[in-house]
């Protein structure tokens, strides 16, 4: 439903009323912004000295960019392992052999149901307690990200393959392909098209979740913004705000890629199936 369906096109009186309300709400927002500004100002948060570090090249090169690099490398490493993990477990869940299907289902459901943070803690402490390994915070973060996002990706892969018309498998088997060939040559190429947007959205989630590394002292972007910079310049609020803007820019960029892929796969002629929604979707599809 378009928003404008909810109200009549305003006439002369309606336009006047909307104008008055617009002014009223604008004033309320400005007052709220001013109160926040006052509070910040009282504590000296607008001191040029707190913001000036962000204009210095050495601060970016020595403190912020290494954090950004660590965030991106943890995200990229986790994504490179999680995507194959998702394909393997997603396809395994569709297997006709119960001894493959059931364990895969158990793994996927277990890791989707428990919080990422307790997996990261477990990797840190369990690795040394059980196997006697020293687990770096990088490996702990990547382990958690792979297990959780890999399991979500497995559900996306399963949904993508299941969304294809059944005739595709039947026709493939009828012309004499083996099941593995049908999967590889017929189903997967079409499924990849329909699940691409959901996979890219999940990668945005993965990128955001790298910030959990902050809790286990991984030196990521948030660590640079909330520990290192404040320790040097006592500017926690400005630096957290700048980090938030960096995260938002990166995620919006990846989100735009997801939107573009979705548009592309909607008009793709490779398959008749529509793009799949991610599992546990937090929205519903609009009425046709």
């Amino acid at each position, binding site marked *: 439903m378009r928003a404008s369906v909810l109200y009549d096109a305003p006439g002369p009186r309606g336009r006047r009323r909307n104008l008055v309300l617009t002014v009223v709400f604008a004033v309320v927002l400005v007052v709220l912004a001013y109160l926040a500004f006052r509070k910040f100002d009282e504590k000296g948060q607008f001191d040029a000295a707190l913001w000036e570090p962000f204009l210095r090249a050495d601060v970016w090169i020595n403190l912020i960019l290494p954090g950004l690099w660590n965030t991106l490398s943890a995200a990229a490493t986790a994504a490179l392992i999680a995507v194959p993990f998702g394909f393997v477990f997603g396809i395994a869940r569709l297997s006709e052999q119960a001894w493959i299907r059931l364990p895969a289902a158990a793994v996927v459901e277990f890791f989707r149901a428990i919080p990422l943070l307790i997996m990261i803690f477990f990797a840190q402490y369990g690795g040394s307690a059980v196997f006697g390994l020293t687990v770096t915070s990088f490996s702990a973060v990547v382990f958690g990200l792979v297990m959780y996002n890999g399991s979500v990706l497995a559900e996306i892969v399963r949904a993508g393959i299941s969304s294809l018309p059944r005739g595709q498998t039947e026709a493939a088997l009828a012309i004499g392909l083996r099941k593995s060939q049908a999967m590889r040559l017929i189903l997967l190429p079409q499924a990849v098209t329909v699940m691409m947007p959901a996979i890219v959205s999940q990668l945005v989630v993965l990128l955001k979740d790298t910030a959990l590394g902050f*809790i286990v002292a991984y030196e990521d972007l948030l660590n640079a913004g909330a520990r290192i910079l404040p320790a040097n310049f006592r500017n926690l609020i400005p630096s957290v705000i700048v980090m938030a803007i960096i995260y938002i820019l990166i995620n919006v960029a990846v989100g735009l890629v997801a939107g573009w892929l979705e548009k592309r796969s909607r008009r793709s002629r490779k398959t008749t199936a529509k793009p799949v929604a991610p599992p546990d979707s937090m929205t519903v599809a609009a009425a046709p």
Partner: protein
Amino acid sequence: MSALLEELPVILGAFWLTVRLTLATAVAALVLGTVLAAMRVSPLAVLRTVAAAYVNALRNTPLTLVIVFCGLGLGLVLDVSFSDSLSTNYLWLSIIGLSLYTAAFVCEAIRSGINTVPIGQAEAARALGLTFLQNLRHIVLPQAFRAVIAPLGSVLIALIKNTTIAAAIGVAEASLTMKSLFEQHQEAVVPIFLGFALGFLVLTLPVGLLFGWLAKRLAVAR
């Protein structure tokens, strides 16, 4: 295993804090999210813009950053204080952070629900002379809510798991308690982990089943 039984009261206390964090946040986020959704479909461009900017900013920011901002930024730097007890204060600040973040997802869920209501419903309401707010309150939102019960269930499950991130500012909910138990009982890391994982399964699985059942039961017959 013995460590798990020995620490059972501590573990249950931690999960009780997780449940309280979840409930307080769920209520606050539902209210704020509904207001944001109403703003996003309102006739006033200023409200639409502000709500859209809020939702896009919060959805693209890591929750850890939001909670750190609330805990350290509001708490330490700006001296926002709700209680003399330091731990209660951080509890409230983490509830604020979780609510601000979750509200953005609630807003998106409800807005997608508004989109499922057939156009004729709102048109009929306007034909009867209902104003925008009456239209939302009596016609559109009741149907939208029934359409998004399953997605709101997913938001709630995500929230239960997200409460663990309050550990970033030292709120001793389940995950932080698990970490300190790991340190005290190095020999029993695996049983303790499995115990906490079981605790989260016990919290999240019934919520999923309950909301699935509710969604079916309350679905709008069309």
